[in-house]
């Protein structure tokens, strides 16, 4: 079996990095259009490296939400990383000391997890460092470009670009919803509940996302439990 090198990791990270560039670019524009300073938007991408959590985060900041609300929203939205991190912990080789675990944990994203868990055999730290490097740089760099361009672009272009991140979200959730009744149910239920909650001004966007996520995902798991096979291949 071939040993995975740092360069193997870099190479596998290229497609992820290119995908992140455009998502991060639209995140930067979205953040600035919500009134977040460009430097803050870049700082968020440098320290968080996650799309959904960051978009929810800037929504909460723009609405001057509380820090407890922020912490709860991030916890729920990013909870899936705990499962990925847990799953990856079973695949690490002997070189993977506690130090490497706490450094590489910083950049475990959906795509990094998907590529890493698709490798056969155990993973050395150097491969994960390589895999995470380019996506991290492109995520931060793309945010910077979007944030600074967003500040100088004409109003009509900015207005048009504001929908980009939601377009991407739809492209992520709709194809699996065609194939899985459980995903379809979860998506439609969460969207419907989110619309209902938006009518109550007392419920902020961060709280609404938490409520919708917990109820929709729990109902999905109860009403549409997955086959044992699918669950064990996660």
């Amino acid at each position, binding site marked *: 079996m071939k040993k995975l090198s740092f360069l193997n990791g870099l190479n596998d990270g290229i497609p992820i990095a290119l995908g992140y560039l*455009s998502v991060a670019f639209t995140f930067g524009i979205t953040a600035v259009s919500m009134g977040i300073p460009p430097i803050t938007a870049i700082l968020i991408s440098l320290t968080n490296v996650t799309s959904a959590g960051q978009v929810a985060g800037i929504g909460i900041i723009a609405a001057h939400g509380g*820090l407890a609300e922020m912490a709860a929203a991030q916890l729920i939205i990013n909870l899936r990383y705990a499962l990925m991190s847990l799953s990856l912990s079973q695949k690490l080789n002997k070189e993977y000391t506690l130090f490497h675990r706490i450094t590489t944990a910083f950049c475990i994203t959906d795509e990094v997890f998907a590529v890493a868990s698709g490798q056969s055999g155990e993973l050395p730290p150097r491969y994960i460092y390589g895999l995470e490097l380019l996506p991290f740089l492109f995520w931060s760099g793309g945010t910077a470009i979007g944030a600074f361009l967003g500040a100088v672009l004409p109003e009509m272009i900015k207005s048009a670009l504001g929908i980009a991140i939601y377009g991407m979200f739809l492209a992520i959730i709709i194809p699996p919803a065609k194939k899985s009744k459980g*995903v379809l149910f979860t998506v439609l239920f969460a969207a419907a*509940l989110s*619309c209902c909650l938006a009518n109550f001004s007392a419920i902020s966007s961060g709280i609404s996302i938490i409520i919708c996520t917990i109820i929709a995902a729990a109902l999905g798991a109860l009403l549409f439990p997955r086959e044992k096979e699918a669950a064990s291949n996660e």
Partner: protein
Amino acid sequence: MSDSAYLFASVAVMALVTYFIRMLPIAAFRKKIKNKFVLDFLYYVPYAVLAAMTVPAVFYSSNGLLSAAAGFIVAVVLSLFERGLLLTAVAACAGVFAVELVQTLIGG
């Protein structure tokens, strides 16, 4: 709290919570989750999050409800045909832009 202190505190909370969610399991746990409901719940979480974040916020993402609705419809159609993240996002933007351009031209 001043604006910059609030910004800094918010970003710090975001970063710390997100980091600890990722770090604690990989640093501390060695056992696999066995509970079927928890596994299924976590599987559905990303879809619920993204759907709740997209609707109804997508309809307020541009300068007008009509243009945003047009962009939303374009994005849903391209997603149904699985045209990929980038093309779907760009096409949604183009949909918004086209509607706003027409509205501007006819003075609406």
